């Protein structure tokens, strides 16, 4: 019961932060709310007893990706001065449309889908199992991931550095 209460609080925190990300006028503050959204997601992972995933979320998303996003925001010129409103002329119709779509999706998800529920408990030694799975069952995706990282770095370097020719 306490768990339910904590879950509701954490979810509200995450959803509110996400809402502020898209509605706030200042880009930097939006990025900071993105950081708090990531933190909320990490807390949700903890509630699901996926502790490694939670700490990986904080480490990679907040530590690396949010920093990258903030640096990218700083690279754009009008960041400091620009305080434009995120709303445009079709805001009201878009709002109505998305609320209707959202309610429709909620109805389908809550009442029409047959969610499989299991009684299995989370194993106590998740990290060790994860490590064994990475080099055992999932070795191909593991190695492909490193190739992907290599490709990402090469691509980003090619785009980001100045042409010196």
């Amino acid at each position, binding site marked *: 019961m*306490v768990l339910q209460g904590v879950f509701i609080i954490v979810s509200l925190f995450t959803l509110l932060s996400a809402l502020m990300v898209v509605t706030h006028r200042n880009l*930097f*503050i939006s990025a*900071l709310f993105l*950081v708090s959204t990531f933190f909320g997601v990490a807390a949700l992972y903890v509630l699901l007893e996926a*502790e*490694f995933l939670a*700490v*990986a979320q*904080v*480490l990679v998303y*907040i*530590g*690396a990706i*949010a*920093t990258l996003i*903030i*640096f990218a925001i*700083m690279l754009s010129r009008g960041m400091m001065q620009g305080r434009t409103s995120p709303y445009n002329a079709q805001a009201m119709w878009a709002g109505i449309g998305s609320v209707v779509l959202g309610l429709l999706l909620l109805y389908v998800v809550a009442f029409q889908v047959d969610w499989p529920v299991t009684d299995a408990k989370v194993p106590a030694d*998740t*990290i060790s199992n994860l490590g064994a799975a990475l080099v055992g069952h999932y070795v191909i995706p593991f190695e492909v991931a490193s190739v992907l990282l290599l490709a990402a770095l090469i691509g980003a370097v090619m785009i980001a550095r100045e042409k010196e020719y």
Partner: protein
Amino acid sequence: MLDPLILGEWWKSFLEGLGLSSGWIILINAVVVTVILLGFGLTSVLFLIWLERKLAARVQDRLGPNRLGPYGLIQTVADALKLMTKEDITPDNAERITYNLAPGLSVFAVLMLLLVIPFGPGLIGVDLNIGVLFIVAMGSIGIMAALMAGWSSNNKYALLGAFRAVAQLLSYEIPMVLAMAAPVILAGTMRMNGLAEAQGGGRWFGLVMPAMFIIYILAALAENERTPFDFLEADSEIVAGYHIEYSGLKFAWFFLGFFLNTLLLASIATTLFLGGWQGPFVKQVPILGPIYYFIKTTVIIAFFMWERATFPRLRIDQMMAFAWKVLVPMGLVLVLAAAAVAKLPVGTALQSVILFVVNVVVLLVALGAIGRHLRKEAERYKVEVRPMPTMS
């Protein structure tokens, strides 16, 4: 004897005797642990600030604070009181909310680390399964706090200082994380208490892998923004980096965070590389655990402070080059070496010896490469210096 575990058992039975449900017991325990850890953290910081001033003073052949209290021990309290009563000047056009949030977040990020330090056998705030990664994750929150401080001050130099600080913190986080991965390989667990336990019998990871230990110490110095990586504090550089516009207690929180970070990085070095609370007779007399931990951590902190008083600082480009071109390759090689040696079909003792030899070899190779690079740089500068043309 004074076994902390027995004290813990007594406390638990006392609480259960009061007839509370287990949920409330957890809550009460959590609050008690919090109060103890926060109290310990803050009082140690007071002591550390005094230690830094005394040590730097003695190195510089002067006395340091010696008026307030015996040997000047009350000096830090007086300084804290002074900072608390200073006027809080918020610059024009500063973003109020983030400006006020930044110092608190900076301290919060460091305070969280107190939870996972094993002070003695079983004496740990929470023995998380992901202890080591938790430490690194809290570092990233500190990075966010630095960015917030720099951006919201509405000051060119604060912003510039924040970017450079973040670049430094990011660059040295990778060597630090690689250095922390090697003890995890040798111990087979990420729990901080487990890492301390795995170093029983004199098999301290810092002795088995000295090069990894050195990498960690250097990365910790940089994460703590200490000399020789403290160009942010250099008065001739960007004055005070991202906390230029902070005064009074807000600056005090940054300052406190700095010293708390020193304490915690030294504690982590002790736990991962110097055996934590391990030492002779610690199984029979558990109270010796915290004493060993305290001695080892103080040695490392004293080393950090001596380093600050002795060495000049690096330029930022030298610092970044050192991180990415020396420490990261060394770290990767040493992690693979530790893994490879661990799979050799020989006994643990022989493995430790082989690993030690590999570490020394890698260290010598790295030093040789640095030396060669520096000599090439010196050649380059020598050639470019031409004698002044004389008027004739």
